[in-house]
């Protein structure tokens, strides 16, 4: 594991970017970008989400299985479309609130993949996604 530091080339100036979490080597991947994301969602456990609600699976203490991508494991999962996730009962019970985020440039780097628009988000140190929450909806845990 590196210390979450990745050299970035920006024009002629080489910058060193540090991330909020400890990241594996070559993480984020080279195709990750730091761009504004207009609307993105995350299911959270309370009406007032904290920094912990945006921790990666790695930061939550879950060990990454050997064959899975450790870099993705160390990201916070956000979704461009998340409403249908609320149909999964267990997930709804664990995370009954749907947070809508608007993320400006400079909070971190991300990569979007999959049909639902899964966003792997790696926050820069000193930033927090909890500050990007613009709306909270729920709770959705009523049976």
């Amino acid at each position: 594991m590196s210390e979450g530091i990745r050299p970035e080339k920006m024009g002629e100036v080489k910058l060193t970017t540090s991330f909020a979490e400890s990241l594996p080597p070559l993480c984020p991947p080279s195709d990750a970008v730091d761009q504004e994301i207009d609307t993105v969602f995350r299911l959270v456990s309370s009406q007032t989400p904290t920094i912990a609600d945006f921790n990666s699976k790695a930061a939550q203490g879950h060990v990454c299985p050997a064959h899975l991508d450790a870099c993705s494991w160390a990201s916070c999962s956000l979704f461009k479309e998340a409403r249908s996730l609320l149909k999964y009962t267990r997930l709804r019970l664990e995370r009954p609130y749907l947070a809508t985020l608007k993320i400006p440039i400079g909070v971190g780097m991300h990569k979007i993949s999959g049909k639902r628009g899964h966003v792997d988000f790696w926050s820069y140190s000193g930033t927090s996604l909890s500050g990007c929450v613009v709306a909270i909806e729920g709770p959705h845990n009523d049976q």
Partner: protein
Amino acid sequence: MTSEVTLKAKVVQVLDWYELPELLLLETPSLEYILAVRSADLEATPNTYVGGSMTARRLRDYANGKCDLRFAIAHANLRRFWKFSYPVGEPTVELQRIKRSDAELAKSLPIAGLFASDHEDIDLVKTYVPNTTERFNIDGSWDLGEFSQFYSQVEDVYYISSDIEKFDDPSITTDEKKTISGAFDRSWDGGGSYVAFYKRVANDNDYHAPLRVSGIQYNSPGHVKIHAKSEYFDTLMKMLQYYADNQVAAKKAFYALGAFMSAAKMKQKGYRNSHMTDAQREGLEKRASELAAQMPGVSFDTLKEMTNGNSLVAAKVLESVFRRLKKLYRFFEEGRVAHEQLAVK
């Protein structure tokens, strides 16, 4: 409540994922499919799943939006429901059979309205979807029944040629061969056997090589559009073109086989393959091979293998395929149907 029945299954695909996989697709060694969601029992570990069995056909229906996930799981095939633990990334899991009345299952079912279009595409189904749309142009005067007659001839020839091609594929499993051969297991004493046979062949192919009507415009000139697997549709059109180009020789081979069988009383009710003398068998197989030679994509040897060596049944099926081909071509010959791949002679 669980019973003692356990089963191993392969995790084929994670269809939806949040922090953990939320929806899994499993496959058992007997090609039974299982869709499973995380257990909603908060006392259970987060990697506990419950799900229901389904046939390949039901899975495809789900993928095509014919039902939602709740329905697909709740109406499991043969009421087979399962519970299991899935440590992320394990290639196989051990399933424990549970009852439909299991409270954990009942509370874990997803809310109605979650469709396959809301999660990752099911790779397994994508492989088998029809990959060509073909248009038959229709003209002239048609009775309503003639449309279904036309489509039924297309269907019968398409499916049987798909079966023959599949049976010849070296990668086919013994179980798949048995399924194909199973369709031939009937008395063959009357017309009902043929109807049932083609129905079964169509059913067996419904997953691997489905044929579907995608549009009909009845008014003349109109069209019938179908979705099909291109390789089997191409075989059908090659058979029709060969017949168009060699009608005289093809009919001659057909009548020769029919006459030989009638003369030897092979078409009489109760006549069986075992009743044939060696000379009769040789004569039958020779004439049947000559007829098969008039139909590209149809091999009498393969048909015989499909019937587990029953020359009589193989010859009867061969005749029935030719009859269908002949009837089908008639629609083109009459000028009432046209397709860009077929030059009518």
